[in-house]
């Protein structure tokens, strides 16, 4: 088989799996699991084959025109360069892991068939985005991902949080998608084609007339999908979905799409200095803000969500300094360890029966209950904190190195200001990342108090996946940083000494600082006995968790999500180093710097006011006219009804009178009178 047809099969197989899963889900439940797992695995194998055949060489380009579409042709096009090949492997890899994990995690879920089909569709859409050589086809995948995320985040639609979160995810990403669509059209019109190769050619020859406008419009869509400030607010809320979905969204598919898109079209963005600076500012605000917010979160998955936002900030930062190799390198390593983090978090939530870090910190021996999750999560957190030699270190250092290059003026890919912004924010974010990673680890695994409830062993499918993902988290960066430049655009990805020392040093400082404050707070907490009210709640919660010890993991999670607010409002007084470290900022950081409130004032309230205005207009004004318009027909109807007397003679009279009138008329007309 040619590489092209292999590549076509990569997105097609999960799509067929999704279609078959949706069709057969009810009639043949036995086929659902193979239909979910096998297409993903096959796509992984094929994507790997494609990557091997592509081998970092010249891009594989193939296109066929389905139908003439007027002045700007839309084609089914494949465009596989090194970036696409490697990202596709990552996507298929993470998707396979998630599918296998889900068979264990949602084994008793009644909606598993539709869930698995949607995950397959999600994967397929992302693979389409990755491989597509045409911007409109890319947009199709892009939007399909949006709708899939809506359904998957809303998987536990019985809970109001999940409903609200799915709506929010959909609306916020759509808020970015509208400018994105306009930007795509503008770009296609300027370049005369939607094909990526031609667009890039036009950008190289300066054929784009409005680079800043187009870049900013596209950036809005990217910010929405990749959860960058200020459109990141949907991502922490999206934690209301099942954990594997979070892993999929955060590691490989949805959020990666934005970064990947910018990496693909980087020359278009580079044509505008302003856009690069905006990108840099966006990245910097995202990195630092999300780091601060992550330090203050109590929900383990929300901590991870904010960390995703921060790591995406690194990627956009790398793009802002014009180094897409570094961005995609970080995307790849981040995909591996973030998927691992989420899947391990799912295991921990299952074991602890709660998703609250504060509650976990009052639980001892949690790590003995879930040794696999404990060890793999440790690896992943080290990778997240960019401690050498874990993979995160190399990718993060490549980003910082690129920023330093630009800042010191070694390259002219991007404005120097962007370099400085990214470098400073990146170093600050390195400190914060290490701090919240340490906090997460300490609170989750070094808790003191009652023994964690024993839920028995975790399903094998779940633990095996963790170890499979731990391997790239541990070793991918170190193994790959030398060979990857051959796949990308040849820029060196080796860590430079200065940034390595600075970044690692700051990370260590952050970690040690957190450890120190944790020791202090836990000593304080040990002296002050727990307040009676929380302990009462805690007893209740233990009963709740014990009520279904053998229950399905996703069931436990759904309960944990639903119970979180009422059960843990008072439990927040746990030994939390974040509270001490952030000081007065803690309250604001915990609320995500009140961005939701700002949005509520800026968008929600005006829309609601407009809606009530429209309702008033509809009820009081339009309805009056409509009602008035109905009055005449009603009157006529009453008159006509009166004519329906049931008296045959009346009917015949009318009939004959009409006939006479008609006859006379015809006669008059015929005789010309």
């Amino acid at each position: 088989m040619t590489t092209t047809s292999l590549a076509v099969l990569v997105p097609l197989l999960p799509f067929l799996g999704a279609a078959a899963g949706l069709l057969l889900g009810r009639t043949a439940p036995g086929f659902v699991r193979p239909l979910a797992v096998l297409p993903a695995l096959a796509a992984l194998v094929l994507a790997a084959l494609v990557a091997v055949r592509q081998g970092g060489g010249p891009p594989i380009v193939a296109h066929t025109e389905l139908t003439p579409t007027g002045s700007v042709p839309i084609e089914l096009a494949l465009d596989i360069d090194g970036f696409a090949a490697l990202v596709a492997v990552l996507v298929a890899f993470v998707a396979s892991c998630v599918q296998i994990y889900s068979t264990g995690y949602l084994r008793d879920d009644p909606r598993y068939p539709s869930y698995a089909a949607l995950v397959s569709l999600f994967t397929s859409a992302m693979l389409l985005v990755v491989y597509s050589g045409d911007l409109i086809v890319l947009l199709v995948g892009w939007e399909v991902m949006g709708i899939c995320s809506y359904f998957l985040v809303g998987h536990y639609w019985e809970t109001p949080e999940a409903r609200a979160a799915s709506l929010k995810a959909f609306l916020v990403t759509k808020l970015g998608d509208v400018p994105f669509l306009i930007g795509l059209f503008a770009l296609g019109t300027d370049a005369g084609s939607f094909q990526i190769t031609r667009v890039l050619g036009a950008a190289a020859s300066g054929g784009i007339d409005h680079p800043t406008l187009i870049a900013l419009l596209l950036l809005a869509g990217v910010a929405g999908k990749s959860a960058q400030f200020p459109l990141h607010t949907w991502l922490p809320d999206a934690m209301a979905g099942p954990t594997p979905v979070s892993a999929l969204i955060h590691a490989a598919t949805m959020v990666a799409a934005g970064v990947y898109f910018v990496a693909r079209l980087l020359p278009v963005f580079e044509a505008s200095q302003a856009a690069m600076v905006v990108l840099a500012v966006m990245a910097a605000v995202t990195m630092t803000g999300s780091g601060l917010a992550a330090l203050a979160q109590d929900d383990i998955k929300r901590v991870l969500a904010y960390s995703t936002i921060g790591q995406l900030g690194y990627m956009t930062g790398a793009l802002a300094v014009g180094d897409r190799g570094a961005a995609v390198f970080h995307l790849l390593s981040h995909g591996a360890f973030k998927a691992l983090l989420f899947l391990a978090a799912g295991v921990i939530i299952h074991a602890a029966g709660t998703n609250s870090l504060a509650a976990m910190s009052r639980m001892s021996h949690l790590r003995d209950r879930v040794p696999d999750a404990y060890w793999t999560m440790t690896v992943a957190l080290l990778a997240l904190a960019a401690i050498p030699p874990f993979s995160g270190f190399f990718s993060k250092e490549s980003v910082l190195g690129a920023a330093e290059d630009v800042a010191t003026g070694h390259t002219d890919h991007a404005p120097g200001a962007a370099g400085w912004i990214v470098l400073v924010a990146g170093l600050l974010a390195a400190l914060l990342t290490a701090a919240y990673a340490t906090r997460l680890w300490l609170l989750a695994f070094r808790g003191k108090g009652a023994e964690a409830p024993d839920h028995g062993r975790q399903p094998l499918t779940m633990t095996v996946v963790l170890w499979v993902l731990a391997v790239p988290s541990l070793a991918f960066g170190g193994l790959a940083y030398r060979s990857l430049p051959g796949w990308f655009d040849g820029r060196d990805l080796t860590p430079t000494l200065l940034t390595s020392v600075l970044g690692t040093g700051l990370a260590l400082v952050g970690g040690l600082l957190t450890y120190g404050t944790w020791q202090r707070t836990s000593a304080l907490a040990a002296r002050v006995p727990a307040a009676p009210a929380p302990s009462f709640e805690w007893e209740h919660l233990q009963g709740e968790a014990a009520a279904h010890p053998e229950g399905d993991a996703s069931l436990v999670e759904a309960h944990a999500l639903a119970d979180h607010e009422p059960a843990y409002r008072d439990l927040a007084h746990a030994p939390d180093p974040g509270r001490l470290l952030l000081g007065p900022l803690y309250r604001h950081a915990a609320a995500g710097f009140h961005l939701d409130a700002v949005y509520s004032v800026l968008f929600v309230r005006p829309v609601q006011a407009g809606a009530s205005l429209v309702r008033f207009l509809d009820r009081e004004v339009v309805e009056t006219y409509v009602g008035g318009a109905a009055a005449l027909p009603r009157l006529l109807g009453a008159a006509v009804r009166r004519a329906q007397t049931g008296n045959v003679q009346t009917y015949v009279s009318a009939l004959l009178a009409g006939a006479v009138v008609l006859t006379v008329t015809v006669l008059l007309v015929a005789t010309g009178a």
Partner: protein
Amino acid sequence: MSLAAAPHGFLSPTGVEIAFLLVGLVTFGAALVTVTTRQLVHAALWLVVTLGGLAVEYLLLTAEFIAWVQVLIYVGSVVVLLLFGLMLTRAPIGRSPDADSGNRWAALAVALAAAVALVWVVVDAFRTTWMDLSGPAAGSTRVTGESLFQNWVLPFEALSVLLLAALVGAIVLSRKAKAEEASGAPDTAPGTASGTPATPVAATGEKEGAR
């Protein structure tokens, strides 16, 4: 239309025309009384006058066979049937004040309009048309029989099927009435509505059969 130019004026009518006019006036007057009288039985009797007058008109038009058929069937049987019907529906013998429905003014308007339109059109179209009644009769029994059994045999036979159907229909209607009466007789206390109809409908059927 060669005869149209012949000098036949309305002001110098022939004898036939005068006879036709007089009989026509009687016929029309009887018809008017038929549709306006308040005594139902009188209406039937005036209908006899009308139909008889029409038979005379047929004779004047030299259609003698049709004239005798008219007398036999209409005057002889249809009117008798109608009288039977009046009796069986317990029509009042004297003047009934409500012989006309409330629709009469509308009916009058429609009828007058139709009459004006029709007369105007007919007069306008056939003002000068002259029919020649001299020579052999156009509707003698021989002529009519020949044309009927030479040219109109198939419709004639089809008509016999229609009459058969009408016969069967009348029988079916009366049979259904009998069944209904059998089931409904104990309930209906008056007995007037249910007791009489059995014979009249049967009589109708017999009449049809006889014809």
